[in-house]
């Protein structure tokens, strides 16, 4: 049987530009941008106050902007991002395919000489690009404000760490965008798709890592009474807890942020005291070593994005065009 003619990607650029211009001019995007900027500024303000008050000498003063919170508003810039980035991605993606059905534009567009692949790729890339634009702008805002208000220029390593963190944030956005895209394919009603995506986000971010993963871990590997008697967590249970919690993209993102923005972080997860032998507590790791610690999590985020996108792709290919 002959191969299908033409490239599957023909028209991706056209679709992407059109979607991008839709996103950038939409009221929805405007609202999301303001939300992100205002929240980020609030977090940044808190961080700067705290850094000024507390930290006198710190080799990584600049990175503290991302991870420090004022006691009165206990939310850091990173934790704001971990909540608002999914919200933004879901806001951009929840109606991307089903709106084409509902506006009855899908069959008309697909009757043009492009494959369905182009439509889906174009939509995903446009969403990711839109979020990237906002995040880069936000990142520059933070760096600029940090320079102005702290009056300390960041070192090259700090900039490198912050930049890699920016890239990871975009990958984190990709996971939620792919999830939103998937549900926009599965559900014909945009409201249903939005609700289900938001529900899953709430579940994965707030319920699963903190409560449910522990319950499930305790069922799979019940705590050893000897450890309990000594007031220590059972290693097997702890390991399961961590494995399960890492099913949530939010957990992965939090861990990467920890490793990248806190150079003194030597491991993600529990380690035995034996393993710390010879280590100088509080001494920072070089960037390469921090990256090694965070690498599995980064791969996990990218893999989750690809996996979700592929599932959406398969569902979309099998769907009938008619409304």
């Amino acid at each position: 049987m002959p191969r299908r003619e033409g490239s599957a990607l023909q028209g991706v650029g056209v679709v992407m530009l059109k979607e991008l211009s839709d996103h950038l001019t939409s009221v929805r995007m405007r609202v999301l941008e303001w939300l992100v900027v205002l929240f980020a500024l609030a977090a940044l303000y808190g961080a700067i106050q705290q850094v000024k008050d507390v930290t006198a000498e710190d080799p990584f003063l600049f990175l503290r902007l991302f991870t420090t919170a004022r006691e009165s508003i206990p939310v850091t810039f990173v934790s704001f991002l971990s909540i608002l980035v999914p919200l933004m991605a879901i806001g951009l993606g929840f109606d991307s395919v089903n709106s084409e059905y509902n506006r009855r534009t899908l069959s008309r567009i697909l009757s043009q000489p492009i494959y369905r692949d182009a439509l889906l790729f174009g939509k995903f890339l446009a969403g990711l690009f839109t979020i990237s634009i906002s995040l880069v702008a936000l990142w520059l805002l933070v760096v600029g404000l940090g320079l102005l208000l702290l009056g300390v220029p960041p070192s090259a390593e700090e900039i490198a760490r912050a930049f890699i963190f920016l890239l990871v944030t975009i990958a984190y956005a990709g996971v939620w965008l792919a999830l939103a895209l998937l549900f926009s394919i599965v559900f014909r009603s945009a409201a249903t798709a939005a609700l289900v995506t938001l529900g899953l986000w709430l579940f994965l971010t707030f319920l699963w890592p903190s409560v449910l993963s522990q319950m499930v871990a305790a069922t799979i590997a019940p705590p050893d009474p000897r450890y309990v008697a000594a007031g220590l967590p059972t290693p097997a249970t702890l390991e399961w807890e961590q494995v399960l919690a890492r099913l949530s993209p939010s957990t992965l993102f939090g861990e990467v942020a920890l490793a990248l923005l806190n150079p003194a972080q030597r491991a993600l997860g529990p380690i035995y005291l034996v393993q710390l032998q010879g280590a100088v507590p509080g001494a920072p790791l070089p960037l390469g070593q921090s990256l090694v610690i965070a690498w599995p999590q980064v791969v996990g985020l990218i893999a989750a994005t690809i996996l979700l996108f592929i599932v959406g792709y398969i569902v979309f290919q099998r769907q009938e065009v008619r409304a």
Partner: protein
Amino acid sequence: MTENVIEAQNLTKRYDGVAAVNGVSFAVARGEIFGLLGPNGAGKTTTILMLLGLSEISDGKARVLGHDPVREPLAVKRRVGYLPDQVGFYDNLSAVENMRYTARLLGLERGQRDEKIALALGHVGLSDVMNNRVGTFSRGMRQRLGLAEILMKDARIAILDEPTSGLDPQATVELLSVIRDLKHRGVTVLLSSHLLERVQSVCDRVALFNEGNLVLMGTVPELGRQVLGGGFRVEVEAEGAGLAERLSAVPGVQRVERVGTTRLLLMAQRDVRPEAAAAVVEAGGRLLHLGVAEPSLEAIYTRYFQDREGTRHAAA
């Protein structure tokens, strides 16, 4: 020259084992206007989607302009324009912006785009509103915008799904004139509809669908002969006494029906107008009107389904 541009052979579509289209075969010649008729859910749209490569073909074969829509969908879609049932556009964009998006998807060169768009919009009479948001457009204007897209594409075949449904009479007339215009440009038109009267006025040939099967195909008079028993219906309006008797004696007339004080309807095997006129004059009557009624698609359609119902009840 009759070259077939669309060929369907035993085209079948099954959803979970249930056939939505069941072994449909037909061919459409270049430059023809071919109508797919039938009640909703008869399989017309599914057939169209299979021809466009937008729906998988479960069984059978299709060729569109010599291409296989399953294996070479881009080649088919490049040359075939499609106007879906209740076509949709991006409401927040203007007519021109919507067309530009399509033009870019088509890969039209930048320099040609605006010119082609303006020309196509002019042709369907949307030049005045080309910069208005499509959200403000009426149903008929959207349909015409869809046709403009097909014109811009320089399509060799236009496939129109229910192009006139939901339109007011004025908009319908305008739309049909654009469809006729397509034919004059040498475009082959395949259209589906359940509105028979309108379709009859533009179609060269029609195919009647029912429950996934193609049950009748041909020109409207052919179908009339097939379904209605082949008779001509000659209408005579005349004043005078004993006309009915005189006319029923005319050779070829099978039956005479009185439909009004001065109107008579003759059921005949052939066109008996000359003989009927002579008969009226011979009888000393005043002939006011003489006409032959084309069999209406509506009558064919209704009769066909009545007959089917009848046989089904008889069988049950």
